[in-house]
């Protein structure tokens, strides 16, 4: 873990412990709470900075950030393209794998919050709409409603492509 973030986490934890103990007294020891808030404040500042730097480093090295998200989405999209006209049983199996990959995307996209909540919110909003469409496609195929399944497979595919464009537009 990056040093700034580590120090930030330690200070945050220490501040919380001091704050919780002093606040627990009856009545609370307000001076202790104030000191703890100061410690926590420094900790929060350092950990947020550290996190931002970590995200940028990961993006530059290609081990995380936008490049990794791009790769995950590209792979999911190409998998979907291959099953667009495949038999139902095959689609369910492959879609299961695609959906697991998308869960990984959602997890790895979390640090993008640092780049701005509006941007992150926009990306995840489109992505989740597509994910839900693919979930519906999975259910419909599993239930034997092929027409509905194909319709939502197409919706999910389009939404993932839109998400990919939004991810590529990021400057991380």
């Amino acid at each position, binding site marked *: 873990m990056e040093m700034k973030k580590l120090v930030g986490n330690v200070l945050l934890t220490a501040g*919380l*412990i001091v704050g*919780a*103990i002093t606040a627990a007294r009856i009545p609370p020891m307000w001076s202790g709470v104030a000191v703890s808030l100061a410690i926590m404040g420094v900790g929060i500042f350092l950990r947020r900075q550290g996190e931002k730097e970590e995200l940028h480093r990961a993006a530059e090295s290609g081990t995380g950030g936008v490049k990794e998200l791009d790769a995950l989405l590209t792979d999911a999209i190409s998998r979907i393209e291959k099953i667009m006209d495949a038999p139902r*049983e095959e689609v369910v199996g492959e879609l299961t794998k695609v959906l697991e990959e998308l869960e990984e995307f959602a997890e790895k996209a979390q640090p993008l919050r640092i780049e701005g909540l509006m941007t992150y919110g926009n990306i995840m909003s489109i992505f989740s709409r597509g994910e839900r469409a693919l979930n519906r496609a999975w259910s419909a195929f599993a*239930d*034997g409603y*092929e027409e509905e399944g194909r319709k939502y497979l197409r919706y999910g595919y389009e939404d993932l492509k839109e998400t990919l464009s939004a991810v590529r537009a990021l400057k991380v």
Partner: protein
Amino acid sequence: MVEAGSRKGTYREITPAAIVLGVLWGAFMAASFTYAGMIMGFTSGGSAIAAIVGWGVLRGILKKGTIVENNIVQTIASAVNISVSGVIFTIPALYIMGLHKEINMLYFFLATAAGAILGITFIIPLRKQMIEIDRLRFPTGTAVATVLKTPGSGIEKARLLFIGMAVSALIYLVQQFPVLGLPEIIPEYVDLGAVLHLPEWIDFSMALSLMVFGMGLITGRNGLIVLAGGILSYYIITPIVKALGWLPSDVTGAAVSGFVYSNMTRPLGIGMLLGGSIAGLILSMPVIVVALRSIASASKLGTGRNEELPIKYLYAGIALAFALLLIITYQIGGLSLGRSLLTALVGVAWIFVASLLVAMATGMTDWSPVSGLSLVSVMILLYLTNKQVPLTILLGATVGVAISGAADMMQDLKTGHLVGGIPSRQQKVELLTAWIGPIIALTVVDLIWRAYGIGNETVPAPQAMALKSMVDAILGGNVPVDKFLAGGILGFALSMSGIPGLGVLVGLSMYLPMLYILPYGLGCVVHDVLKRKRGHEFITEKVLPVAAGLMVGEAAMTLLFAVLTVMGVLHP
């Protein structure tokens, strides 16, 4: 287990069969849990059981059910059932105090209906934020989705789910032997502190609940913060407070832990929950704006995919609930119009904050801090209503129904997301059926009152008694406002850390008894270790079905015992 043959026609989702089954099963659970809850002191959501019953009827009998249709069944059933907890926590307190005759039954219904409407309408923008953008886990919602998807998921996943269910149900059944008049074989909890010869003031007891362990297994890393907070609360703060001599001299031995919990860490935890969620709300504002914009622009989607409930429902729901609260406050409280307006306004705003808090807490961990929020609600409402107890408790019922409904709806919407249900359809059926639950619960409470009385040996109504104690404590000026404030400041700061919901998670860990934190934390640790060693796929393919089974098995037995209690077979 993908079925052979292709089905034609519209994909079955909202169907008469789903609505009738959902309402009937929900009503059955609501009546059972109302009665059992007033005796045993707890209720259950019942979503997972409704999903299993749904499969039995839709596929087993009608031979045509679909995953999303069954999702509607469990959504309606849990919507009808969930308001029970909001009612039995509050309304019986009026009966115990002999104040119920002061209020017309119609107002009971209006107050709880207002709660049911508000709880649902407020989660319209929060759904997008919490489920789609923040990606909260909602362990119960995830478990129910696993149950719903079982017929299409393959034999291996179904086998794991049923193994989990069987083990969990069996263990729970064996634990209940004493209730059945049989010798105890497996206790409900173990005192690890005594086994390890720790000092008796260290609370190291662990509930042997596979359901709680399963919740932790699904939650994963987020729950580790709850475990860490529990350790801070029970194994750092308690010894230090004791060493510093901050305890009354008559509090010694095993009483130390209980005293610290009741008077120090629990109120701090409630404060942290509030401070943390307010900070979360502020930080999430840009995301909520995105969510609202996205709902507003959904109708402009070129593909005809308008799957969001229009924003006007949110405004209409708030306006209607506000009007109901205003009428109730003005008519019952005899307050001036200005004060009635203020009460209704603050009431609606508070329900929004409380719904947000409960939805966040359940989303991150599956725990719902309803009793702590009720304490704060009663405190606020007593002040607003000039300490009018009947009106306060009635409005408390509104809050209780709203927040339990909001948490349940969010769990259902998470399930919906995972199975591809259309949110607007789930929200519509919930809006159309959620008001049924309060009528059932209120009717059962009144019948129980006429038959046995309430607050006696036969019907102890522990939650309502707790509320009565709360009201007495607040009227006596015995509220730890300073602890709420200190906790609120710390929780606010924690949530600004960049770790989403940190203040809420730590607050929750101080609020919960260690008895449940330990098995829950153990589940989280197992999840994290397995994820590191075996990868994400192993979690999805193996761990999730087992964990869902563990939760469903114990939940099913809880319902069975509730029904047996109602039938008079068991006398807990």
